[in-house]
């Protein structure tokens, strides 16, 4: 029976690491630009669909290579979002930028529908039994998901703490105007944020699609969890987003043992509600900024 709970915990950690990958980009964009990017979910979906496109006939690249052009284009979409929509609106009313991001989300999602249809798609992977470690089942894709999350967060940690670019990124999120007066290259920092947000979202989307299926709503559905993770960790805090994502993944999966599985979202969000009542700024309660 203990194995049962350990297995639930494992499932929770895996699900949580994917939520965290989605959440980190949201947190970064919020930390610096102070708005919630609703079209973040579409970067998840585009990453997955572009990989499908490059691995299907016409390109027929092996899956591992298909990921590279797919991520490059996803980053392109992220940068284009900023260049064409968010940058011109940066000085305007925050509501305008929020609505623009909702509109952009619809646009990007419907382009996917137009190109690939609304029907479910799948990577043609051969199905295999999960590997067993001390009675715990785990599939190769799930291992890949966890390793990727570890690798990505490791690189991010290194970038933010050990490089000048990372330090300027943190400075900008603390005070944008002051940083620009101090001579920090704002363009470079802005680009870095969008590149990181797109790479994290796109890779998370590809991993999720490898594990399950692709459908145009996959980004939107997971964005809710990512929002919750960001809120829980403390808006704008990257490490908070990581902890928040893991917390939600574990809470919802463990709850299945005790209540009807269809209420697992209720448990996760109920816990967040209670936690935010006592710590309204999230676990790592800070006013903002990329830490």
């Amino acid at each position, binding site marked *: 029976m203990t194995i049962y709970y350990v297995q639930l915990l494992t*499932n929770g950690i895996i699900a949580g690491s994917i939520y965290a990958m989605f959440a980190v980009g949201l947190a970064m964009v919020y930390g610096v630009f102070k708005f919630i990017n609703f079209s973040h979910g579409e970067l998840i979906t585009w990453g997955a669909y572009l990989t499908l496109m490059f691995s299907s006939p016409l390109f027929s690249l092996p899956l591992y290579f298909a990921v590279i052009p797919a991520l490059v284009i996803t980053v392109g979409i992220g940068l284009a979002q900023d260049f064409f929509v968010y940058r011109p609106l940066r000085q305007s009313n925050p509501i305008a930028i929020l609505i623009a991001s909702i509109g952009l989300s619809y646009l990007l999602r419907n382009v996917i529908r137009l190109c690939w249809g*609304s029907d*479910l798609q799948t990577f043609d992977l051969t199905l295999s039994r*999960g590997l067993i470690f001390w009675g715990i089942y785990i599939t190769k894709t799930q291992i890949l998901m966890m390793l990727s999350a570890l690798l990505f967060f490791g690189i991010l940690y290194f970038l933010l703490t050990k490089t000048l670019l990372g330090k300027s990124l943190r400075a900008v999120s603390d005070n944008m105007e002051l940083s620009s007066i101090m001579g920090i290259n704002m363009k470079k920092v802005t680009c870095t944020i969008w590149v990181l947000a797109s790479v994290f979202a796109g890779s998370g989307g590809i991993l999720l699609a490898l594990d399950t299926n692709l*459908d145009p709503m996959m980004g939107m559905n997971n964005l809710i969890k990512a929002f919750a993770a960001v809120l829980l960790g403390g808006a704008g805090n990257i490490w908070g987003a990581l902890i928040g994502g893991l917390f939600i993944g574990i809470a919802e999966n463990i709850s299945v043992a005790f209540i009807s599985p269809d209420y697992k979202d209720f448990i996760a969000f109920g816990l967040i509600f209670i936690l935010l009542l006592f710590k309204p700024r999230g676990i790592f309660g800070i006013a903002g900024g990329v830490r």
Partner: protein
Amino acid sequence: MKKFIFSSISILFLILIGSVMAGEISVGSVTPLTGKLAVYGEGFQQAMLLAVDEINAAGGIKGNTFKIVFEDNNSTSKGSVSAIRKLITIDKLPLIFGPAASSNFLAVCPIAQENKTILLGAESAAAAISKCGSYVFRVFPSDLLQGIGVAELTNFLEYKEVVLTYVNNDWGVGLAEVFKTEFTKAGGKIIDELPHGEGKTDYRSEILRMKSKNPKAIVNLTYIKEGATILKQAYETGLNVQWLMGSASKSPKLVELAGKASEGVIGTYPTFSQETSQYKAFKTAWDKKYPGKKTPIFGEYNYDMVKLTALALQSAASYGSDDIKAALMKVSKGYIGTTGDKSFDENGDVGASYGRWTIKDGNITDYK
């Protein structure tokens, strides 16, 4: 301006006079001709038009030409509501063929009932439709019957204890309730019962809970996407059971998405004999009108619906909806169409016989 108003009124008048003079009897149809169901809608329309041609070739309705006024619903509930409102208030039709997809059908049935307009369905299965009201009928069997069908299948395969899981919406809950009642009545035991969310991507923890009960068989009443994900993740988790499913997951898409994890699934689906003289006549007529075209999904049901309506209109005392309703109940008794017996019960439902399907070597075949 005056001239314009005058000419508009006269044209309208002429149209009205024209429709009466020509001796036309019309009924309405809310059909998905655009949107995501358009691919099916075209087939429904062709099957209905085939029946209309036959009715008119045989002399029409009491000497009048029979006609269907088609309204597109863009495959949505909102579109269905606008379409039926137009057919009721502007065209003033006493009988309307309802839209495909249970959610669209359920959206329009209160409107039909309220306006005392007869609503007939040919492809909506939700059990809730039985409770729509006295003006609502369907020639397609209710899911209630399917619940019984799955219970019979489980007993036939001699599984005494099963885990039951179903998609958590009106359709899934209703179907599971019927299954539970029938299965436990026959002495079966449900060792665990768990609803699963619609459209999720991760069911692993649900599967673990099912696995922890060590079942030999799991009854999974769900759709294609959810069904495929569950089968796939169960396979990865090393869950070896007999999966029993309904007709909503019977699709080549399930095999495509779940691959070898779908191998050996057994399920039920509403069926009818293709050996009857009625079916053969339909098939010959279809091939003649639409050479080289396959009969569309639910085409036979649409054809039966129109034929039965024409019979009712023939024997109705007047063109009012109450008279047509009474006639419909009467003529349906013992009426055998291409899809079998179409006798309406007090809820406006028909009976059905159920076939069994299985997946073998990646193909959906009949289970014997």
